[in-house]
């Protein structure tokens, strides 16, 4: 689980490096190698403020922008403390190679786990504040007055007594020569003027004119294009391929094997490369997994539901004894499928290799992870490698820890030294070679006494561990347990359980498969919220109680969970009659240190056509940096989560994924979009919550609970299309 490292001192190192015709105020924070990091590589960042003579402020951001608005939010935080003119703020990515060369001055680049802002806010603001203090000091020195008599606002420094004014651009050079301040005080959030406001995004214009360059659009002089196919059976290898036919096709420059597992065609254009690849006959050694199917995987998971051995994620009292002595028991089994991220921009990377230098251009959620893949694949030392980050056409977790496309691109480029090669996956390759939302089954058993009081609960998860596949060292350190499996129902931390239930046991029988799992927006909160929040409704039903009232009994010790739940209940009109033919459902959870809840209002026609009319989503994220962008993330997360609920499953047949495109793996369209009402209710405190992911998990259980109210039917497996249920 992610935790912030303890910071005992703050050092700001001044750099005199000129940049952009101006001066860079380098703000080095103590996130270098000397800092102890959490086992899972918890994120750290460092910001740079560059001030040009024309007062332009360039905020350097190590996090990646993939649509979630992070660069705008981080720039707001810097600008707030810097007291600069927001109209002159722009942003820039430092490169991973620079980071290595400068002893990781920017720390970790990872942009996942909804951490872009929540894990960066403090040192980013410190950076802005320190820069402001130095600029003011520089002006005070010029005027020979105490800095305390000067103030800064909107990039202008004023000495009130004498009426003198100057601008940041004019004193930037002098400021850069000053010692950085040791004691930097941050503003109270109630005094914010730029942060906390719905500033427009900084990156919109190029996205509406077609000018924005995605990795997919990159052009370099002399560049060739590659298409690739990797063994569709995970773990399979290339046995042979007949290069002759493809080699003679129009535009083809090279047909080559990539590693043990893939074959690529390099051509003048990608269309030529793909056409030749499609014509190629590849024989695969499919290995031991060629017979695996969704049904065989489900059997393995099912056995785990009753297994003796399991890792404990949350325990109080004696759940097994409570169940044994129950007057009434309620039991239900749920399941969640494999799902693909399906970023609109398929995976891609461009590489250029010479023995002296290897460069990669890539849309990435983690430039350092890309850099590591480049180092490994190129065999060159770090000072001969560089990664250039490009904005992403969607990430959702696919482009962070996993850099398989970078490895492939570098391997191909190594075969053609000096020639830049852009590797682009087809949509079919992207669908086949996902890092999939893991499969999970869950058996929940609740115990009631004779007076319908809940006396115990056992939640048994059985399924795949992401960390066992991706970060095995973390799992090993935890004696085989994957604590991330318990997101939202864990005993403690940023995904802690939002109820106090007597005699509770939540455990996980880890059942791994050959299908590579990955971090998929929200990660394990998606299934855990469905399992637990739908079962809470089942328990309420069994106890003959209102689902909201039933939940409240166990939430006295969880005021922030209760706060968001009450907020959505009130807004949806819970307890008052719904419009005719409409039915309501609720769900709540804590995820990525934000408290979130949703209330859905749906109608069902003919028993299977579901219209989601409204969803109210509430978020207590501690602090809200850009409310308009939070609203968009909430609505967007509902689209992602409800597409998954209704439409999406990757099935396994003969060891491979069956779905290859949007015709068999659909996604919501505008006609299906509910009215989303977002309630942002930050309650402050020491810990900031995330935004990009948390609310994704409450949409599905709220809708499923409403579906039960509408039809009396409990749907316990995803996606709903498998039950003949459509979203209309």
């Amino acid at each position: 689980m992610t935790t912030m490292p303890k910071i005992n001192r703050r050092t700001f190192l001044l750099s005199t490096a000129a940049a952009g015709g101006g001066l860079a105020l380098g703000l080095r924070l103590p996130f270098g190698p000397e800092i102890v990091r959490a086992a899972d590589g918890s994120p750290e960042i460092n910001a740079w403020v560059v001030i040009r003579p024309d007062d332009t402020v360039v905020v350097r951001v190590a996090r990646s922008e993939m649509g979630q608005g992070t660069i705008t939010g981080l720039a707001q935080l810097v600008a707030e403390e810097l007291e600069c003119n927001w109209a002159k703020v722009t942003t820039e990515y430092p490169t991973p190679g620079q980071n290595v060369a400068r002893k990781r001055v920017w720390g970790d680049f990872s942009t996942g786990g909804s951490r872009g802002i929540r894990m960066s806010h403090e040192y980013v603001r410190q950076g802005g504040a320190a820069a402001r203090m130095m600029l003011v000091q520089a002006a005070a020195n010029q005027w020979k007055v105490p800095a305390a008599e000067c103030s800064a606002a909107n990039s202008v420094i004023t000495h009130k007594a004498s009426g003198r004014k100057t601008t940041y651009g004019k004193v930037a050079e002098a400021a850069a020569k000053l010692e950085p301040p040791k004691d930097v005080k941050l503003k109270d959030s109630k005094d914010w003027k730029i942060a906390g406001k719905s500033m427009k995004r900084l990156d919109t214009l190029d996205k509406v004119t077609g000018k924005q360059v995605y990795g997919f659009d990159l052009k370099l002089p002399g560049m060739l294009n590659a298409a690739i196919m990797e063994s569709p059976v995970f773990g399979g290898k290339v046995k042979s391929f007949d290069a002759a036919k493809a080699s003679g096709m129009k535009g083809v420059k090279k047909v080559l094997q990539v590693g043990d597992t893939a074959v690529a065609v390099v051509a003048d254009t990608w269309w030529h490369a793909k056409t030749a690849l499609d014509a190629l006959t590849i024989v695969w050694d499919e290995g031991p997994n060629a017979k695996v199917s969704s049904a065989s995987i489900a059997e393995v998971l099912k056995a785990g539901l009753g297994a003796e051995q399991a890792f404990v994620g949350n325990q109080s009292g004696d759940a097994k004894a409570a169940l044994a002595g129950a007057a009434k028991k309620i039991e239900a089994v749920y399941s969640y499928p494999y799902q693909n991220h399906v970023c609109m921009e398929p995976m891609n990377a461009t590489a250029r290799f010479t023995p002296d230098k290897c460069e990669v251009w890539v849309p990435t959620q983690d430039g350092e992870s890309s850099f590591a893949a480049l180092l490994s694949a190129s065999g060159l030392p770090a000072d001969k490698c560089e990664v250039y980050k490009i904005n992403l056409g969607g990430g959702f977790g696919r482009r962070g820890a996993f850099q398989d496309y970078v490895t492939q691109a570098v391997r191909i480029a190594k075969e053609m030294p000096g020639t830049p090669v852009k590797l682009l996956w087809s949509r079919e390759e992207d669908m086949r070679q996902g890092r999939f939302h893991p499969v999970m089954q869950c058996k929940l058993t609740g115990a009631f006494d004779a007076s319908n009081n809940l006396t115990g609960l056992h939640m048994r998860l059985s399924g795949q561990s992401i960390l066992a596949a991706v970060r095995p060292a973390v799992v090993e350190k935890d004696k085989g347990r994957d604590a991330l499996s318990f997101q939202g129902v864990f005993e403690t931390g940023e995904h802690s359980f939002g109820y106090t239930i007597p005699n509770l046991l939540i455990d996980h029988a880890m059942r791994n498969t050959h299908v590579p799992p990955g971090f998929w927006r929200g990660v394990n909160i998606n299934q855990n919220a469905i399992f637990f929040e739908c079962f809470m409704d089942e328990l309420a039903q069994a106890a003959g109680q209102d689902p909201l009232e039933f939940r409240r009994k166990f939430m006295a010790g969880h005021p922030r969970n209760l706060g968001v739940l009450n907020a959505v209940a009130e807004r949806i009109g819970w307890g008052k009659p719904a419009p005719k033919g409409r039915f309501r459902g609720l769900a709540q959870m804590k995820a990525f240190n934000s408290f979130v809840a949703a209330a859905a209002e749906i109608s069902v026609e003919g028993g299977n056509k579901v219209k989601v009319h409204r969803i109210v989503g509430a978020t207590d994220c501690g602090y809200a940096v850009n409310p308009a962008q939070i609203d968009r993330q909430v609505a967007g997360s509902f689209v992602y989560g409800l597409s998954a609920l209704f439409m999406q499953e990757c099935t396994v047949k003969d060891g491979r994924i069956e779905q290859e495109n949007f015709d068999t793996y659909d996604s919501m369209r505008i006609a299906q979009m509910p009215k989303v009402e977002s309630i942002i209710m930050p309650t402050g405190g020491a810990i900031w919550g995330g935004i990009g992911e948390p609310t994704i998990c409450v949409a599905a259980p709220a809708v499923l609970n409403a579906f039960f109210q509408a039809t009396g039917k409990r749907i316990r497996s995803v996606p709903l299309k498998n039950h003949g249920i459509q979203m209309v």
Partner: protein
Amino acid sequence: MQLNVNGKSHEVDVEPTTPLLWAIREQIGLTGTKYGCGIAQCGACTVHIDGAAARSCAIPVSAAAGKRITTIEGLASGKALHKVQKAWVDHDVPQCGYCQAGMIMAVAALLRAKPKPTDADIDATITNICRCGTFQQVREAIHAAAKA
């Protein structure tokens, strides 16, 4: 083969079966039009052919020859944004933005055919996929553009 794109004639040297999308991207060099699926499902590749929205990934270039093709780069007139682009900026519609060129082209064609579309018109016509889930802002911006 001659292609008329954004008011200019371009000679392209491709097989007639090449999808129009790839001729636009790789021969003419206009990369605002995106690839998302290759089977006319997602709409990321939407352009206008003789004023109507078309999914260029599934149209052979031979079928577009001699016709008037407009891409996102040709939507604005000079420096003045098209009213749909302007509404997109005013409403901060894009998130990652990858699908938005196709979305904007689909909407611009809708507004040409139906200057004041109802929500039902929008639902029936705008079927582009956006994985970021910008639909709420898309709808607001369409209505705003219709009033502009």
